[in-house]
């Protein structure tokens, strides 16, 4: 199992075991992680699954595709380490990944 840590805007960390092949968003939702809304269910159509990736991990994730970049335009307080969690697929190499959820989704 791949271990993922979600830190909320107040700084509380929650570590969960993620299933390989699921998305980071699905992992959050299945584990009732607060701060991820995922209104569109992972179709890259709502930008309410926005997370900040720990800078140490930024370059270890596959780069976002155009569709994800376009949808990030609809998120707020977008930073260089912003990603949409529904577009990140869990695999063994991501063991230990840490992401922070923003203060507010859209």
């Amino acid at each position: 199992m791949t271990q993922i840590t979600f830190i909320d805007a107040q700084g509380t960390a929650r570590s969960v075991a993620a299933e390989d092949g699921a998305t980071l968003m699905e992992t959050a939702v299945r584990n009732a992680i607060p701060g991820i809304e995922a209104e569109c269910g992972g179709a890259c159509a709502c930008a309410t699954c926005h997370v900040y990736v720990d800078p140490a991990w930024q370059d270890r994730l596959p780069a976002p595709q155009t569709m994800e970049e376009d949808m990030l335009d609809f998120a707020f307080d977008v930073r260089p380490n912003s990603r949409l969690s529904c577009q990140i697929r869990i695999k063994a190499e991501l063991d230990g990944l840490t992401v922070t959820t923003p203060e507010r989704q859209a």
Partner: protein
Amino acid sequence: MTETIKTDALIIGAGPVGLFAVFELGLLDIKCHLIDILPKIGGQCAELYPEKPIYDIPGFPVVTGQGLIDNLMKQIEPFGPTFHLGQMVESLESIGSAQAPLFRVTTDAGAVFEAKTVLIAAGGGSFQPKKPPIAGIDDYEGKSVFYAVRKMEEFRDRTILIVGGGDSALDWTLNLQPIAKRVILMHRRDEFRAAPHSVDQMRSLVADGKMDLILGQVMALKGEHGQLEAATIRAADNTTIDVACDRLLPFFGLTMKLGPIADWGLNLAENLIPVDTEKFETNVPGIFAIGDINAYPGKLKLILSGFHEGALAAQKVHRYVYPEKRLLFQYTTSSSSLQKKLGVA
């Protein structure tokens, strides 16, 4: 005074479920008017995922959101529904009785309808502009912060900060630039989703010094009594600067809000409208709710469920519209009268 539009069935929401209801009602000789706040037909399918594939429409191994809407439009063409787009239904009041219901419906564009039955196919609610989560932005809304341009004159000789990278942001940048004192376009990155020719036009205006382009994001607003004086922005290089402006137009796409439906005297449960599963009627006889907006035990927010709901609701609508007529169950495959209605016999 605008003229009252009389109709047998009024459908609120032109998403896939509202559209298919036109078909089921049409087979029963019931004519429809549809209203949607969006300027286009198709609800979530057309607005949120026009290019994405749907795999669970029976009989279609795969169809895109827009493809499904185009097909539905073709399917309901024989029934000639009338669309009233770009307007939000504001009020719905009963002016009839339980036996002979009649409703008065008004929109924010001033249209007035008198309908024997109302089908609410409002999905997740009206599509409305997303508000940026900037502290205190509410105080400026409608005074110096706008999410749409209703009157261009409001923007004459103003310093306008437009935020976004899509077609709305670029179109308004180009339209307002000639009459504004100055237009400043701000976007978080130097790539734009908008149509390439608008982007080119914008870039040449910037090159000619006729407008400004800033890469960054609005973090805070400064002003008094709703009058904007400056926006504090975080630029792409992480520096924070104040940009003087007296109008702000943020374009961050649309989100769904229940809206005025909450004020129509209907029972609501967690922003959904409870219905029975025989007729999909609400607590008010003559008002039905179908598609994503309704709630009942076992409800699935799927397009196919909404289609079924519309078919069953239509049967009861028929009883209100034609109380004296008996309803025969018929197949489109074999009934010559249904085929005549469809224009294929």
